[in-house]
């Protein structure tokens, strides 16, 4: 089963929840951090990394000896990654989306396969939890190819906890698309509600079942709860606002270790979702 933890915005406690779920689950569990721009789960799970795999995409390298400057490659590329003017041709590998269009249209076989490194996938384990995350290369703009590379390592038959990137755009979709269930983490403030509405919009569009966890319960007001009630959305858990939790977080201590009393609620939540 694939269970994704997401939020409309970062900083709501998404990783806190994902890590807690991984630590409270029984049996075969895999924690997978798909927030490849800023992966944080490893800070709390402190896994031993045993394998590193570089993720690359195929980009064009022009062989000017064969090129006739016909411009077909430029015309098919919708991402402006190739320019041809007169007897000059230039490829911009950082703009390439790796669609392979240019390779296919070039009649002269003047385009060779090059590589662009997107980032690295790291695998290992934290106690009995299988661990996997991706780290986007600094300067690399496109995270979905790396997210897909991370997800190739999903262990079948395991309970897979996917820590999703924040937001509502392509990286989130790449993560949650084939999840069986999503938990949305939010905060009881107008901002939390705004971001929650966006995230709910995405999940409804994707038609994935979901429920909500309110983090830092008690800091704000009840507008998130009221909205969820109106929309018929289940609130599965409220994590209280507690300075001890904030301090534990600051020391990279997982929530369920700072507040062992919350373990039972996570275990129960997993039980409910599994059914």
């Amino acid at each position, binding site marked *: 089963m694939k269970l994704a933890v997401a939020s*409309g*915005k*970062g*900083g*709501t406690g998404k*990783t806190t929840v994902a890590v807690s779920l991984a630590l409270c689950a029984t049996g075969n569990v895999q924690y997978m951090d798909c927030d490849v*721009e*800023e992966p*944080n789960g490893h*800070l*709390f799970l402190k896994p031993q990394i045993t394998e590193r795999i570089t993720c690359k995409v195929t980009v064009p390298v022009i062989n000017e000896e064969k090129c006739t400057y016909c411009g077909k490659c430029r015309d*098919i590329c*919708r*991402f402006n990654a190739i320019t041809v003017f007169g007897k000059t041709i230039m490829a911009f590998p950082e703009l390439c*989306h*790796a*669609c*392979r*269009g240019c390779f*296919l*249209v070039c009649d002269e076989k003047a385009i060779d396969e090059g590589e662009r490194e997107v980032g690295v996938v790291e695998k290992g384990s934290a106690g009995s939890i299988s661990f996997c995350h991706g780290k*986007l290369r*600094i*300067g*690399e*703009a*496109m*995270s979905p190819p790396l997210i897909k590379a991370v997800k190739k390592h999903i262990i079948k038959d395991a309970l897979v906890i996917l820590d999703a*990137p*924040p*937001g*509502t*755009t*392509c*990286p989130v*979709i790449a993560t949650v*698309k084939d999840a069986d269930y999503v938990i949305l983490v939010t905060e009881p*403030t*107008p*901002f939390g509600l*705004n*971001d929650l509405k*966006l995230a709910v*919009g*995405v999940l409804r*569009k*994707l038609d994935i079942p979901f429920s909500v966890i309110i983090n830092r319960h008690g*800091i*704000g*007001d009840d507008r998130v709860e009221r909205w969820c009630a109106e929309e018929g959305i289940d609130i599965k858990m409220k994590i209280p606002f507690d*300075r001890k939790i*904030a*301090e534990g*977080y*600051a*020391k*990279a201590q997982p929530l369920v270790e700072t507040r062992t009393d919350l373990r039972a609620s996570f275990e129960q939540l997993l039980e409910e979702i599994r059914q």
Partner: protein
Amino acid sequence: MKEIVVLSGKGGTGKTTMMGSLAVIVPDKIIADCDVDAADLHLLLEPEIKEKHDFVSGVEAEVIPDKCTGCGTCVELCKWEAITLDETAYVEPLDCEGCGVCAHFCPEEAIMLKDKHCGYWFKSETPYGPFVHAQLGIGEENSGKLVSLVKNKAKEWGEELGKKWVIVDGAPGIGCPVIASLSGAHAVLLITEPTPSGLHDMGRVLELTAHFKIPTFVCVNKWDLHPEGAKAIEDHCDKNNVAVIGHLPYDPCVVKAMVQGKPVVSLFADSPVSVAIKEVWQKLSSILS
């Protein structure tokens, strides 16, 4: 005109608090919300929308079933596995990257490429000055392009109005939206927290701003919750020749202001955090002037 981008490694570090407050205290500026993926500055700034524009970007493939013979060429060529074949082909819009390869090679010309409507962008007036912002359609991509658009429109409008500053709310992360929000910036104000993830994410953003050679200044939010963590951030900045120009204390006024949907400096002008934010701006503006 000078452009300052406010960033955080991730959301939740106080970036919106800082942005909302800068909107109040910085004189003679235009504001741009480039955090289009989960835009929420409008909740604080009460914009009155003056202009609403469509944001169209890229294309999306669509099969014309009457023309499709089900040959399967497109299915094989699509690198995103966005096309499935029953009797005729079908493109799943959420998976389509808009590369156009399928349309180019379809022997029956049975695939159209339609312009993709990805959202809206707005020019607004707020009690604190002009404001350019956007709303990305649910599940849409191209936030990098929308970010560039919002920023360029803000710059254009700012020039027209003769403004001195452009204050940009930057996107989180280190991928395309944040890269787009950095281009052409004079300085980055990076808000972080004294936590391991705050330090980790800040490190990644600093590498990125160094990569693009943009002067970066750090402000530590809620530093007093974990002074050793704040020290670790300072040490990291020292090592990388980055100046820490502010320490914001943990202050319950922040959440109170947030719940009321108002910038903290306007609601609680003399609270410790407001005083600290004003100092950050004094330093930053004198460094950049």
